[in-house]
């Protein structure tokens, strides 16, 4: 049946191979037979050894993870436009791999009966399928990569082997958008283009054929040294002839080629000789990105990303890096510093992209604040986004106009964050909400109100907001606001009592006989709520204590406790224990989150080892001691046990 929806499906499919080889008419007919399937995160699409479905799948939105028995090793992650589950249908066998929704996903299920005639009719479709089956999809997520996750670690013998095998098979990804110039272009123009496009090389072409290449190095060696003036033409500076290779090359081949000629860029042409059109460039950076996850490469990749989609793939690699750090037991302090740094860079980049998408530049200075776990630099996994925006004071008549501008900006940013994996805040605590997008004067009024009228809502709001951290923009605005908050709290010390009592509201982690207390109903019945019962009391406690000590600019809970240990030597032991417990719990949460691809908040107790349980319980003792201290210090009377 041909209609609006089947036309839309066909529009999507024709962007991806092998459907791009199919005639429009046939594709529309095929689209009319497709089912659109919605899968929740973690839902199984098919299991290993299951009988093949009568259809194969194309990812429309989201991502699907393919795993292999025996230990569920990840063999591939399918993104928008990727096909999976087709091979068993052609080979008439059961599934040899399992497929699960890696995130919330929408699939197109294409009936094989309708697709088979298309394979027979279009040779290119058949060839594509045979090739993709033969080469096996690229899998940068497989186990064999873990050895490479942390620079300096020695991969084990076994890993090393599989790694090499893989690299030999993997096709290299290259930039298809060529930046080119002619022989007569001046070096100044070329350098400007390279800066604008953020590339390290420009290809010099004549009649579409590559005749030379100019890289950063050429500009340094031949222009900056004074050998040639900045007005000289490309032809005088370029390295020539260009060393060319065919498109189909593996990572190892590309590496070898660069080493052989000691160059950092390879030019790819249709047949591999300089006599055919240039179609792509591989830089050393591309190969580094392909090979490894190290923070420096990732930061560079983040800064180069010019769209949300690209950032999303980088974010996935950050998760791989995190997994590697945890596997290798790198200290959590270091791990969370690096990961937070990378997360921060992602947010900054998103804001930069958003600013570019606005038609005008911001009317006044502003600051983007991360709140909650991101603000405390404790966010290792994808969690909800909590953020706020503060802008400079403007005359009253311009206030709403200015707010409208920033709300629009915030809308793009929060959408970008959503696209790369941060869920929207269910309570709308986001800068795109007019309540969280205020001028500095409005924020001062607002925080003043919270501190001087500390009801339950105000305390809750303060505890979320007061962990803010500057993500992007004007630091002066943030400092001004912080100074105001400290001044006000000093004048109204009763606020601390309320904040402390808020900190004591978290339900207790363990019962009378030191047994775990689990959730009684809802989606997570019988799970242990690690965040609410164990982490929150520590986070809340650290916040009220550091605020009362007027400690500025330390947001991280573990670091706050370390600072407190310094300030109160008589409680040093407790605070150091708190710091340790925070780190241990955070690591625990992160490990579980990565294992189940969620936020790690809810823990299935029956899946824990004895040792893990003991570790957890030890931290509960520390939490109880901390709560005692809060009760006495802030004279909290209305207590929960």
């Amino acid at each position: 049946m041909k209609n609006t929806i089947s036309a839309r499906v066909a529009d999507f499919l024709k962007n991806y191979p092998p459907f791009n080889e199919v005639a429009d008419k046939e594709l529309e007919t095929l689209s009319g037979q497709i089912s659109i399937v919605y899968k929740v995160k973690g839902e199984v699409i098919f299991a290993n050894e299951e009988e093949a479905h009568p259809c194969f799948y194309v990812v429309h939105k989201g991502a699907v993870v393919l795993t292999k028995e025996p230990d569920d090793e990840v063999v591939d992650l399918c993104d928008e436009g990727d096909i999976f589950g087709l091979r068993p249908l052609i080979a008439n066998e059961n599934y040899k791999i399992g497929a699960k929704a890696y995130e919330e996903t929408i699939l197109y299920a294409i009936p094989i009966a309708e697709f088979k005639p298309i394979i027979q009719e279009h040779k290119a479709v058949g060839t594509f399928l045979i090739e993709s089956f033969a080469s096996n999809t690229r899998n940068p997520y497989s186990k064999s990569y873990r050895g490479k996750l942390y620079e300096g670690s020695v991969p084990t013998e076994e890993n090393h082997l599989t790694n090499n095998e893989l690299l030999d098979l993997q096709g290299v990804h290259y930039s298809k958008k060529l930046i080119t110039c002619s022989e007569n272009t001046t070096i100044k123009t070329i350098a400007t283009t390279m800066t604008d496009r953020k590339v390290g090389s420009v290809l010099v072409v004549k009649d579409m054929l590559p005749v030379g290449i100019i890289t950063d190095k050429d500009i340094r060696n031949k222009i900056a040294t004074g050998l040639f003036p900045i007005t000289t033409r490309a032809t005088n500076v370029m390295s020539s002839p260009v060393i060319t290779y065919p498109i189909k090359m593996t990572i190892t081949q590309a590496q070898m080629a660069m080493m052989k000629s000691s160059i950092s860029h390879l030019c790819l042409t249709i047949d591999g000789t300089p006599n055919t059109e240039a179609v792509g460039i591989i830089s050393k950076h591309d190969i580094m990105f392909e090979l490894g996850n190290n923070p420096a490469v990732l930061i560079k990749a983040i800064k180069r990303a010019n769209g949300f989609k690209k950032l999303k793939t980088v974010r996935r690699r950050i998760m791989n890096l995190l997994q590697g750090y945890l596997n290798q037991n790198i200290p959590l302090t270091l791990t969370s510093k690096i990961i937070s740094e990378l997360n921060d860079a992602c947010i900054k980049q998103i804001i930069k992209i958003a600013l570019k998408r606005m038609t005008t530049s911001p009317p006044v200075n502003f600051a983007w604040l991360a709140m909650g776990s991101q603000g405390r630099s404790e966010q290792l996994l994808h969690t909800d986004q909590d953020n706020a925006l503060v802008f400079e004071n403007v005359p009253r008549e311009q206030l709403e106009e200015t707010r409208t501008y920033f709300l629009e900006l915030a809308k793009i940013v929060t959408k970008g964050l959503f696209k790369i994996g941060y869920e929207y805040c269910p309570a709308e605590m986001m800068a795109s909400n007019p309540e969280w997008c205020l001028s500095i004067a409005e924020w001062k009024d607002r925080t003043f109100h919270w501190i001087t009228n500390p009801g339950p809502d105000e305390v809750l709001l303060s505890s979320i907001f007061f962990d803010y951290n500057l993500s992007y923009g004007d630091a002066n605005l943030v400092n001004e606001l912080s100074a105001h908050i400290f001044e006000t709290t000093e004048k109204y010390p009763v606020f601390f009592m309320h904040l402390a009592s808020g900190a004591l509201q978290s339900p207790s982690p363990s019962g009378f006989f030191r047994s775990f207390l689990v959730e009684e109903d809802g989606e997570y019945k019988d799970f242990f709520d690690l965040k609410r019962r164990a982490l929150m009391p520590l986070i809340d406690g650290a916040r009220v204590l550091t605020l009362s000590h007027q400690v500025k600019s330390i947001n991280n809970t573990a670091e706050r406790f370390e600072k407190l240990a310094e300030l109160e030597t008589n409680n040093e032991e407790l605070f150091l224990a708190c710091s340790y417990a925070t780190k241990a719990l955070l690591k625990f949460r992160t490990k579980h989150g990565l294992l189940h691809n969620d936020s790690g908040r809810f823990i299935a107790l029956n899946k824990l080892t004895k040792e893990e349980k003991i570790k957890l319980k030890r931290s509960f003792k520390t939490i109880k001691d901390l709560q005692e201290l809060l009760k006495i210090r802030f004279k909290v009377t209305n207590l929960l046990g």
Partner: protein
Amino acid sequence: MDLFKKRKKNYPDFWTEYEQKFEKKISYDLPDIRFVVFDTETTGFDYDADRVLSIGALSVQNNSINISDSFEAFLYQHFYHAKNIEIHGILQEERQERITELEALIQFLEYIGDSVMVAHHAGFDRNMINHALNRHGMPNLLNKFLDTSVLYKRTLIKSPLLPVKAQYSLDELAEKFDISKKDRHTALGDAYITAIAFMKILQKLKTKKKFSTKKLLK
């Protein structure tokens, strides 16, 4: 039993066939239920004066939309508001094949059967169809109805920090659930957005405590 009660009126065959489909017991097993998500484009908002210009519908079963089981009809109406045409882009001259209102209703009843109907602000679409049926001497639709604007509100967390709005537009839902708005303001395009939103909403509701299909359909 009303076996001996005489029918007040002799309805045409297509209506009695439709009516008969409701005689069998309905299943409360969620994967068994066929939902029909639909939308109408109309000449305006007056149930009596305005007319349905097009109906678009998709079936959702077990979290899957089968495109071959979808419905799209453009109606031939003498009655036109120039204003509305601007919004929906439906022009009388357009090449879409048009059928009479009665023909569209016959096809629509055949298509929906005893499915559970879903629409955004369902009351409006339901009334529009019912008024059209009445004009042709038929009674109202017999199906159960769900309204995504009502269901969506049930998914929101209860928090003093989050004021719940009285109305949530389809645009807002599309934003929240990251659904493309490309075919907005065509009946089938809006039905598609509603269908995806409906599946996502249903998933959220399922994770709430005390969820049961029976309650959902009440």
